[in-house]
């Protein structure tokens, strides 16, 4: 499609349809967008052939790439430093176990069982090593675990796990030249300086309608993303770490984060997730469903092997250990980002990408369903009293009266 505005209308229309499906089926918009992208590419590809949705159009690629970068920044900025400080030992041990076991294990299974080449196997390891802070947080919030020490430890461990994934994605495929040294050196300076410069700069010039804060954040993300790309690395790596180092300052500015989220979810991530879905080959999945199953099981088994023993070291028993492990076995955002990185850089084929994305989506849904159905540690659930309910219900009495 040569007409830019028709193409934009098509993509935004698909985003709208995906949002409606998300509302009807009560799932996340991102998951819905991936599925809509897959189905739309299938239908439009058959109907008009050729480029179909136009996912390779440069401006679509730019919007999608920006979506991945800003989304990763927001994910990093959601780290709660206070929780991490109290649970850093457990979070570090469990988070690293949750990263290394599936990273190495899934890569080995892809290499030895599926017969993939070395680089695609490493990519599979990275894509399946992730966890999903957001998926876990939704479960924690719904059950009330987010207020318990147990729930906070799980969330902190998820951050460390994802940090391992992002670092692996950023460095394992890097060529390690002098550019890599420059990138690491500049990154160290920028990551160290940003937490000091940013709040002061915002206090001095921020809070105006010109949205200086958003421009500053985008400058940091694009600048470091460009440097990462120049060094042969991946732009989401600096984005996640910038988010983490600014979590205690900028991350607490709810108005700014909300504005960035509006920009991200309103325009950018629909392009990212629909594009990610459009590259999924349904014929490849139908032709070899066992590959998807093996990859999914590889993630589950290796997560269990890594996380379960490390969780028990910190005294979690009576179902809390299995539940913790299943929560750490989830995945969505970084799994799809890793798989798309592999496809874009020619590390994996379209079919391998499809199997990985399917396994990642499976890991977003299945572990939480199993965990809540059979392994929920009810003895750790907080029990609000009726008096607490009354207090919780009262603030808006005053506000609305």
């Amino acid at each position, binding site marked *: 499609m040569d007409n830019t505005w028709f193409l934009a209308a098509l993509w935004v229309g698909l985003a709208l349809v995906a949002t409606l499906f*998300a509302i009807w089926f*009560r*799932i*996340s*918009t*991102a*998951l819905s967008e991936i599925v809509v992208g897959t189905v739309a590419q299938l239908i439009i590809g058959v109907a008009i052939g050729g480029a179909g949705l136009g996912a390779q159009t440069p401006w679509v690629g730019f919007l999608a790439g920006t979506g991945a970068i800003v*989304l990763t920044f*927001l*994910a990093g900025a*959601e780290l709660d430093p206070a929780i991490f400080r109290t649970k850093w030992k457990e979070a570090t041990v469990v988070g690293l176990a949750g990263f290394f076991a599936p990273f190495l294990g899934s890569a080995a299974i892809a290499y030895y069982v599926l017969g993939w080449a070395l680089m695609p196997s490493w990519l599979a390891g990275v894509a399946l090593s992730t966890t*999903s*802070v*957001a*998926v876990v*947080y*939704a479960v924690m*919030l*719904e*059950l*009330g675990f987010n207020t318990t020490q147990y729930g906070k430890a799980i969330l902190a461990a998820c951050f460390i796990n994802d940090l391992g994934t992002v670092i692996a994605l950023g460095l394992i495929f890097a060529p390690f030249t002098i550019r890599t040294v420059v990138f690491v050196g500049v990154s160290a300076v920028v990551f160290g300086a940003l937490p000091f410069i940013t709040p002061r700069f915002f206090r001095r010039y921020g809070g105006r309608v010109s949205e200086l804060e958003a421009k500053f954040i985008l400058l940091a993300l694009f600048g470091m993303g460009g440097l990462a790309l120049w060094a042969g690395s991946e732009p989401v790596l600096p984005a996640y770490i910038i988010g983490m180092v600014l979590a205690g300052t900028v991350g607490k500015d709810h108005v700014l*984060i*909300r504005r960035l*989220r509006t920009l991200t*979810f309103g325009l950018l*991530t629909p392009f990212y997730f629909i594009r990610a879905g459009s590259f999924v080959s349904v014929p490849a999945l139908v032709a070899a469903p066992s590959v998807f199953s093996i990859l999914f099981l590889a993630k589950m088994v290796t997560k269990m092997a890594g996380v379960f023993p490390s969780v028990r070291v910190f005294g979690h028993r009576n179902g809390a250990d299995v539940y913790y492990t299943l929560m750490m076995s989830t995945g*969505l*955002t970084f799994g799809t980002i890793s798989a798309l990185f592999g496809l874009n850089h020619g590390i994996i084929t379209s079919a391998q990408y499809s199997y990985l994305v399917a396994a990642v989506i499976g890991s*977003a*849904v299945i572990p*939480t369903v199993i965990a809540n159905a059979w392994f929920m540690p009810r003895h750790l659930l907080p029990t*609000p009293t*009726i008096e607490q*309910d*009354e207090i*919780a*219900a009262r*603030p*808006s*009495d005053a506000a*609305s009266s």
Partner: protein
Amino acid sequence: MFRKVLVAYDGSDGAKAALRVGVGLAKSLGSELHSISVEEHLPHYAVSVGEIQEAKDRVDEYFRILTKEARDQAALNGVELQTAIRQGHEVEMIVNYAKEGAFDLLLAGYHGHSRIFERVMGSTAQSIIRLSPCSVLLAK
């Protein structure tokens, strides 16, 4: 007979009818009247904590207003309504709350889904009747 009465309250027409019945019973029998509202509309499998938190804040605000209206309505009739808000599966939360609070009567609204929906999914009311630890009264 009905010393403690619980109303499952989600703001629907059926739930409002159940609340009216509950207020009437509490007034005439001198029963203790409680309500439980269950938030079950959080997005699952989201990509951002902020997305979930924002959805939760909206749902919280909706239920705060809803329970305030319910308390006001009960207060107009001289009845004190004690409200509770829970997150999770609607039927499970309502039934567990009824068990924990040792209620004598559970009041719920009839939603009236399509026959196909009810055949496939089963209705909330049917599940509550089946699992409730106490007598159930459905209001229309």
